């Protein structure tokens, strides 16, 4: 079937089998491999992208469910010369070690900032319920997000 969607501002019409997951369309068809697959069971959040501005787990959606939608992946928010403030904050606060969870953490963190007024560390911790990091112990991730929340 044909799925038409806008990813990082560019419209794509992609021919995929109906059982294709959104994360596979992103990684395999569009070769945007910044979005990761950790668990494939809606637990870890490594596959988090924005669908019409809200964080969703791309491993748990069909590509067909994104028909007509605007999708933003980690590649769409900044680049090495021009980091998004959240990416810069993660670097500044040493909020990553292996980096596997980082794209999903950053996409979820941006959703948190966009949809909450006055984030405190408790709200940030609860907001990361759906994202698992096996390296950092979370403290520096929370600090990075707090620094962006306080700056905005």
């Amino acid at each position, binding site marked *: 079937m044909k799925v038409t969607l806008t990813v990082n501002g560019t419209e794509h019409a992609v021919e995929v089998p109906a059982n294709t997951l959104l994360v596979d369309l992103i990684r395999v068809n569009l070769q945007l491999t910044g979005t990761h697959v950790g668990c494939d069971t809606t637990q870890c959040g490594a596959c988090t992208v924005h669908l019409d501005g*809200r*964080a*969703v787990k791309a491993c*748990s*959606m069909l590509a*067909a469910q994104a028909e007509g939608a605007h999708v933003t992946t980690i590649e769409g928010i900044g680049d090495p010369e021009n980091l998004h403030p959240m990416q810069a904050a993660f670097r500044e606060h040493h909020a990553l070690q292996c980096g596997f969870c980082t794209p999903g953490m950053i996409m979820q963190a941006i959703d948190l900032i966009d949809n909450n007024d006055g984030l405190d560390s408790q709200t940030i911790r609860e907001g990361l319920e759906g994202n698992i990091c096996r390296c950092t112990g979370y403290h520096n991730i929370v600090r990075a997000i707090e620094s962006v929340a306080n700056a905005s």
Partner: protein
Amino acid sequence: MYQFNYHKPASLDEAVALFREADDPMYLSGGMTLLATMKQRLAAPTDLIDLAGIAEMTGVQVNADAVRVGAFTTHNVVAGSAEIQQALPVLSQLAGLIGDNQVRNRGTIGGSVANSDPSADYPAAVVGLGGTVHTQQRSISGDEFFQDLFETALQPGEIITHIDFPIPKRAAYRKFPNPASRYAVVGVLIADFGGSVRVGVTGAGPCAFRASGIEEVLNEHLDPSAINGVEVPDAGFNNDLHASAEYRAHLVKVMARRALSDLLKT
């Protein structure tokens, strides 16, 4: 996941017609439960009928004595709706406790209620508030809707279109969440309709139910200590690696006392 035919009807009539024509169809809402089930090959529909394009199933309406929520409304929309927060805050609070943010952005109230997971949160509200589940063909009372583990009064092909929740004088919901999934090990919703109290329980048994023993004592004394003397029989309760049936029966009383303390503060 096995291959299937994907359909996205624009109306209820079209959805039902597609359902009748297909070999082994299933409806799809947020997919937060169904897609995982299909990945594990525990479900293998020949046809997936996506309800996302049906305008009749969306929207929130608040009137003087009830809140009507379209079946395709996501948990985060219910949690964040200023109208629902104002008229029926317990429903927004409950929706905000479901899973995680990404799940709440996709999962819908209709999908959750249709699924009748024994530890889902919304069933406690449908039962505890005395809600009514509407489908394209009839209305089903909340007391009759949940029948067993993953079993409801829905007939094959029936679609939940919206759910009505009567507005109580005050209400509160407390759950003991599973620390990994956030699903309710036990959740209790207490609603005070001024003269009569309803108590909806999820997580404890195969499906949501009213705790009639607790309702009886609370109709006499609306006081947390009144719950102490109630017997909650654990026969038929869920017994798994998360909690024994006996522990769940204990949690029903603990969550009920906490919910009632919250309710009395409002």
